[in-house]
């Protein structure tokens, strides 16, 4: 049996013990939104969050990261993984982490990402409140969340804790868990199933159908139309749990000898993203118009990666829709409109 129950009254003590023993990152309030951040007091953990501003991938792939530190021509790696419990991740973000795990592992392995990923214990939690732009119930339905070590679901009287790996099992030591009953397991399943059709937004077609149709619209004028109000601000990229592009630059310290090679998140909606140097000092931008950049993101989310990932590279979190000040980034509007054309 790998399902356990902990009473509501014992949960705070469990969190307290875990925080005392391990570095724990979980959802926390920031003004009227939520962010993943280090949990230092049990009451800071907000499992009732709807969605966080940035996805939890930032734990393995920080927005800014030193890759190497150099001294003259000599460089040394800065990979310093830290054992971490990433607690309270919603299932859609677990799906996204599984995608970035795959993407950072294939071809050139990204050791910075993988080192931190490997020493992290990833624990999910059920969605207690649904974000106002979420559509996770209707996207990539065939893709199951995996790669996590455990999952908590709030049920009557407490929490069901499902353990999938040894790392997940280790956490049992911090609290008073008892074996869960069949009833409790069924209740948890129902809790998790029931949110699936409560999303405020819905995609009406199957992902394979979408993938083909959207691809066939490559030369359509709709892209410029969709992107008319676009600021090329990249917010839709930067908040996305499945986006993984970055830019690398060298920076010297004032002494002009030491410095670091740093990577920073980048995004295909930004004008300079696809600008490159050519021989002879000239420049070329292969996605010069707003429409072409806008199209590229939608293509990446719906079509280009589906074969590789076994489903769309979008998990329906709704972050892009809400972070777009012009409110034009919502994949649901774009996809449903294209499918009806």
């Amino acid at each position: 049996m790998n399902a356990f129950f902990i009473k509501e009254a014992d949960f705070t003590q469990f969190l307290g013990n875990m925080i005392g023993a391990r570095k724990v990152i979980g959802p926390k309030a920031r003004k009227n939104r939520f962010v993943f951040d280090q949990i230092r007091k049990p009451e800071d953990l907000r499992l009732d969050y709807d969605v966080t501003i940035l996805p939890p991938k930032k734990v393995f792939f920080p927005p800014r990261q030193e890759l190497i530190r150099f001294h003259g021509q000599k460089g040394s790696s800065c990979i310093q993984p830290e054992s971490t419990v990433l607690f309270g991740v919603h299932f859609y973000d677990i799906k996204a982490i599984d995608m970035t795990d795959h993407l950072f592992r294939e071809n050139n392995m990204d050791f910075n990402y993988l080192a931190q990923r490997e020493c992290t214990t990833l624990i999910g939690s059920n969605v207690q409140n649904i974000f106002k732009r979420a559509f996770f119930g209707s996207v990539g339905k065939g893709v199951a969340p995996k790669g996590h070590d455990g999952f908590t679901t709030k049920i009557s009287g407490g929490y069901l804790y499902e353990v999938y790996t040894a790392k997940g099992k280790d956490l049992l030591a911090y609290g008073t868990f008892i074996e869960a009953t069949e009833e409790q397991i069924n209740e948890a399943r129902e809790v998790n199933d029931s949110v699936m059709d409560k999303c405020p937004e819905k995609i009406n077609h199957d992902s394979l159908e979408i993938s083909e149709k959207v691809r066939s619209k490559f030369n359509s004028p709709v892209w410029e139309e969709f992107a008319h109000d676009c600021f090329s601000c990249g917010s839709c990229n930067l908040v996305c749990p499945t986006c993984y592009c970055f830019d690398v630059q060298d920076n010297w310290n004032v002494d002009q000898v030491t410095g670091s090679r740093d990577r920073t998140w980048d995004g295909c909606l930004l004008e300079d993203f696809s600008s490159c140097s050519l021989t002879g000092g000239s420049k070329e931008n292969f996605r010069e118009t707003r429409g072409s950049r806008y199209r590229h993101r939608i293509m990446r989310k719906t079509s280009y990666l589906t074969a590789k990932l076994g489903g769309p590279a979008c998990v329906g979190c709704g972050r892009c829709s809400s972070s777009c000040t012009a409110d034009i980034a919502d994949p649901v509007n774009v996809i449903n409109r294209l499918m009806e054309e």
Partner: protein
Amino acid sequence: MSDKVKVAYFDFTCCEGCQIEMTNFGDAAFLELLNHVEVVEFREAMSEKTTERINIAFIEGSFSREADRARLEEIRERSDIVIAYGACACTGGINALKNHQNDYHEEVYGKDAKMPHLDSQIALPVSAAIKVDYNINGCPMDKDEFIRVVSHLVHGKQPVIPNHPVCVECKLRETVCRYDQGDHCLGMVARAGCGAPCPADGIPCEACRGFIDHPNEESLVKVLMEKGGLSRERAETRSRMFTANCRADAPEKIVSPNK
């Protein structure tokens, strides 16, 4: 000594706040930098003046009198690289707020309005008079960005001047968007590089670094009205504080040297 990069500082129409920001580096950092560069002219910190060849000229302040053109041309002539630093030099800055008005002489100087030394034209960026190689934006300019640019040049590399908007930097530090707080902001069109401190402090971005190369001004007005709750008139003029020369209605539209 002689293999050090020779730098000189010049100022035009401005408050000289950026030069002060430069002296704010603190002794340690500034002295460290002096191991690699030799300052041959810097009015705010030394009295010497030169006519020798300069590797990097830093120009502060806007170009607001035709009479300054010759001095700017002379600087360009003897400098390998010209860098405009601070909002006034890069975009005309706050000085350019006068560009769409014509009664400011009387408003500000009253009976002295006609004095010859007060005569000036519209405020333009340095790039309106001479070729500028790089802009270090901001009001005041950011001393860390200054170090980054100088370091790249000392190493013979091309510095990267950001052409993405402030939204990027808010996202990187996970700031709650001003629009999510029922406020408004200019971050979507404002050139980044500052690290977005204002929205993080709960203040809308004022675009003190000017616009990105291709700001969507039409969309800005729309969002300021629909989400920010501004009247059409205010939405249309809201960005003018620092971008009078970057806006579509600028008297003489400027070209970013960073392209």
